């Protein structure tokens, strides 16, 4: 007989037709089926010893069916007569038939008569229907299903190859492998040898009996000695293994599902915590930094202000860029988190008060507002202080000249010399005083200039204005005193004039010419030492031209000098001719040697002035070089950044190639930008040189360092944001199984309505897009309500726009949720053995420690009436995972 033909649905009358059964197989079947029946009958506290005898009255047969089906059969007839027995057996056969099994060839009489073949056939039908039929793996027949189960479970075991239910099991290794696969603790599989079939079979059967509660149904000797073991016996026994292990398998699947769901929650919570932490750090930094930027005061000194500019440069180059990166990372991880939550069917994440993305954007905006104009302010402050410094120097210089002049004038004016001198001497003294008066008048302008400079220093808030004011006050006071003293002396001299008349005229001419010349010399000295501040070659050129003009007047002055000295020499010559050794010129205080000395000073100062002007010219030319150096580089870097920005922006819009291609391209951009960084650093160095040389304008480029820094940061941010977007799209695409073609179709639809290429749709655009795709959104209040509902799905944060990623998710949303509270609840129910609560002990036993503790910490005590101590409520826990609760 072909043992593979016995699919009971097709071959109900095989037993009858065959009429014979291999005696060895019959012996095996009797043993196996008896043991199988007893493995169930023991639950009802009974057993059979002889299979063809003990079912004859139908009573134990009915009991067996009740145990294995869990259903109640009609009450058996208690009588001992043959017809009672037949009635009972028929009740059993009717029950089997009611389970959809045709029993064409098996009659009650033959069972009652103890027909072995019929009895074995009937038991096999029962085994098939109740122990094997339910094994359905991938919609195969029951037998193929059981075979496939064996093959899958033994696949990792190289010396086992299950092809059938007879010879494949003969060496016992298949049984051992099945046990080892599920309970590796029960036997040491690798020590087993194919050559010891008896040993292997005994080991498997012993272990199964002792630890798995599967009675011995097969006889190792029979298995080994028969040419081909009985297939039905082997199937009956193997099916017991299946049932013993499938319970564990179900629990394992349930535990896996719970783990998967919990891992999603744990990861999401981790991302939320990370977001909160990053947000706090960033906000702290912004809160700390903003006041510094808002503080627009300096210590009013040049070095202090310069130091502040250095600090700002450090802030702008070293401190702010990593924070901007952090901000971008924060926004991106927020988007990723929301995508993950949406994909895993969880409620959207709401950051704690004050830490929303918009809060961070606002704080950042506040920072940038505070920063705006800071550098310009500092530079203008520097310019102001530099000018002030220069003015103060000028002030001091003028003061020095004036004080030098004023030195001893008070004593001179208070001198009583005119009371003990000759008439001539008095006349001289008077003339001398007149000359002094004109000198005094000539100095009026200088004093006024000094006062004007002091006033300007006050107006410009010079830091050491106290000293300036004190000195100015001293000069003014002295000036007033000199005026008073001069007029007093004038009166005294006038008083004496009537008495003293004689006038020495010899010196008169000298005095008349020497005084203005001396004055001119003082002026020339002042001009030659004049301080200047220029910012361009043109300005220094103008100063040079003025100096050249001055030099042209020198020959004329030389003539005048020689003429004046000639007069003095004439006096000397005349006085010597009449023997006077010492003749004072009464009309002037200007001595010829003073003039000569000053004249020589002026002639020496001319080339010095030439040198100063020349140095300044070189400095201005160098500044020009620095401007050109910065401009040349900036004019390359600027357009490069602009081009990169355009290229990055067009990647998402052009959608050439797959998402991975786009991602790849974006990573290449990222790399290119990173490699380009040295150019920015180079520019920063040029810019620093420019700033340190006090250059404030550059007409060779319209780029400033700041515009380039901003462009550079925009580029970095744009790349990072695009990478994140594409990654989120990949995440969505892979979790939904969207093809590349579909992806492109979605992208085309989206882009078509993204009129301003902002890479997100405004509600109006999104609505038009949905309508074009066939959505029925009416132009009435119902349509508005429908659309508002859709918006609350695609934009849970009320950001006011729809990203491509959210659009994609919405369009591919499945009607049946793949991951719901119900499924998690069902899985816990399996672990809990159908109870409405679970215990910490079960959780620790079924789940990995991490997940088990996660559950135990969060589950509330179960409060139902059937509660036991330590019972936990897995139902409210499951709904809470999805932001829901049962009431």
């Amino acid at each position: 007989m072909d043992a593979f033909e016995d699919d009971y649905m097709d071959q109900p009358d095989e037993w009858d037709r065959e009429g014979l059964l291999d005696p060895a197989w019959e012996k095996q079947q009797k043993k196996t089926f008896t043991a199988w029946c007893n493995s169930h009958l023991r639950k009802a506290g009974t057993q059979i010893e002889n299979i063809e005898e003990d079912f004859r009255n139908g009573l134990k047969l009915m009991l067996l069916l009740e145990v294995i089906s869990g259903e109640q059969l009609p009450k058996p007839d208690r009588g001992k007569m043959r017809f009672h027995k037949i009635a009972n057996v028929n009740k059993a056969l009717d029950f089997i038939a009611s389970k959809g099994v045709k029993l064409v060839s098996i009659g009650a009489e033959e069972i009652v008569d103890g027909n072995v073949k019929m009895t074995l056939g009937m038991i096999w039908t029962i085994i098939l229907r109740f122990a094997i039929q339910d094994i359905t793996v991938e919609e195969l027949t029951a037998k193929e299903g059981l075979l496939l189960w064996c093959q899958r479970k033994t696949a990792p075991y190289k010396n086992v190859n299950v092809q059938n239910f007879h010879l494949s099991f003969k060496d016992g290794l298949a049984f051992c492998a099945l046990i080892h696969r599920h309970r590796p603790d029960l036997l040491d599989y690798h020590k087993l040898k194919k050559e010891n079939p008896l040993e292997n079979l005994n080991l498997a059967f012993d272990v199964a009996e002792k630890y798995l509660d599967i009675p011995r149904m097969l006889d190792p000797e029979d298995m080994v000695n028969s040419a081909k073991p009985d297939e039905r016996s082997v199937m009956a026994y193997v099916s017991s293994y299946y049932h013993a292990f499938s319970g564990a398998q179900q629990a394992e699947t349930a535990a896996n599902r719970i783990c998967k769901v919990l891992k999603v929650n744990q990861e999401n919570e981790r991302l939320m915590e990370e977001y909160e932490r990053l947000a706090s750090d960033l906000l702290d930094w912004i809160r700390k930094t903003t006041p510094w930027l808002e503080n627009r005061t300096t210590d009013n000194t040049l070095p202090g202000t310069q130091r502040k500019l250095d600090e700002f440069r450090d802030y702008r180059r070293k401190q702010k860029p990593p924070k901007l990166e952090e901000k971008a990372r924060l926004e991106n991880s927020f988007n990723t988190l929301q995508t993950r939550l949406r994909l895993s069917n969880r409620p959207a994440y709401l950051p704690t008060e004050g830490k929303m993305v918009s809060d961070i954007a606002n704080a950042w905006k506040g920072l940038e507002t505070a920063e705006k104009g800071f550098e310009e302010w500092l530079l203008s402050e520097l310019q102001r202080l530099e000018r002030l410094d220069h003015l103060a120097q000028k002030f001091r210089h003028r003061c020095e000249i004036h004080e030098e002049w004023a030195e001893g004038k008070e004593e001179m004016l208070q001198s009583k010399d005119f009371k003990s001198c000759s008439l001539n001497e008095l006349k001289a003294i008077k003339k001398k005083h007149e000359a002094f008066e004109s000198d005094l008048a000539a100095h009026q302008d200088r004093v006024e200039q000094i006062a004007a400079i002091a006033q300007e220093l006050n107006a410009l808030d010079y830091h050491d204005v106290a000293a300036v004011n004190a000195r100015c006050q001293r000069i003014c006071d002295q000036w007033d005193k000199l005026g008073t003293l001069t007029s007093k002396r004038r009166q005294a001299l006038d008083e004496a004039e009537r008495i003293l008349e004689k006038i020495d005229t010899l010196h008169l001419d000298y005095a008349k010419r020497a005084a203005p010349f001396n004055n001119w010399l003082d002026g020339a000295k002042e001009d030659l030492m004049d301080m200047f501040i220029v910012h361009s070659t043109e300005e220094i050129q103008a100063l040079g031209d003025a100096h050249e003009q001055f030099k042209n007047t020198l020959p004329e002055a030389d003539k005048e000098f020689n003429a004046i000295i000639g007069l003095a020499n004439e006096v000397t010559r005349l006085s010597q001719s009449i023997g006077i050794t010492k003749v004072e010129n009464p009309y002037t205080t200007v001595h010829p040697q003073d003039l000569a000395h000053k004249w020589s000073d002026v002639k020496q100062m001319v080339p010095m002035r030439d040198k100063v002007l020349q140095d300044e010219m070189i400095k201005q030319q160098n500044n020009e070089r620095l401007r050109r150096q910065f401009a040349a580089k900036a004019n390359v870097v600027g357009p490069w950044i602009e081009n990169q920005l355009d290229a990055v922006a067009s990647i998402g819009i052009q959608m050439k190639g797959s998402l991975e291609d786009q991602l790849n391209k974006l990573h290449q951009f990222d790399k290119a930008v990173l490699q380009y960084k040295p150019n920015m650093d180079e520019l920063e160095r040029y810019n620093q040189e420019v700033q340190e040389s006090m250059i404030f304008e550059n007409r060779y480029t319209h780029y400033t360092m700041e515009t380039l820094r901003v462009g550079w940061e925009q580029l970095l941010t744009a790349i990072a944001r695009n990478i994140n977007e594409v990654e989120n799209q990949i995440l969505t695409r892979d979790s939904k199984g969207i093809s590349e073609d579909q992806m492109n179709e979605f992208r085309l639809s989206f882009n078509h309505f993204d009129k301003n290429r902002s890479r997100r749709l405004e509600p109006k655009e999104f609505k038009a897009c949905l309508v074009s795709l066939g959505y029925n959104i009416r132009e009435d209040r119902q349509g508005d309500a429908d659309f508002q509902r859709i918006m609350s799905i695609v934009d849970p944060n009320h950001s006011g726009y729809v990203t491509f990623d959210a659009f994609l998710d919405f369009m591919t949303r499945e009607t049946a949720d793949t991951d719901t509270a119900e499924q998690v609840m069902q899985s816990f129910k399996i672990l809990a053995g159908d109870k409405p609560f679970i215990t910490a002990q079960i959780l620790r036993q079924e789940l990995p420690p991490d997940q088990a503790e996660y559950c135990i910490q969060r589950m509330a005590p179960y409060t139902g009436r059937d509660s036991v101590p330590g019972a936990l409520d897995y139902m409210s826990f499951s709904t809470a995972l999805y932001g829901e609760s049962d009431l």
Partner: protein
Amino acid sequence: MAAPSVINIQRNHTQEPWGFRLSGGRDFRLQLQVKKVQPGTPAEGLLHAGDAILAIGGTNAQNLTHMQAHQLIRSAGNLLQLTVLKGHFGDLGSVKPKGPVKFSPWRHS
């Protein structure tokens, strides 16, 4: 949009569940709503999946967190009064396109 309706649900004792699942709340930025209704419970036939909850008793539900709403409903005694918007969060089936999505309609026009 339909007008809000006031629903009164009664139960026999305070331990008996009302028989519906609540979702949403201010903390989830989602309006409070009925997620599902268990058959054979006081809520059956009165509440339906997708009903938006506007008020619980005399309390405006707009600004309640999930847990606040949960506690209010739990401690409502044996009579629960809810103001709901029927079917506000029903499935979007009526809006969805019939048949497969037609891509890029502008290409054909």
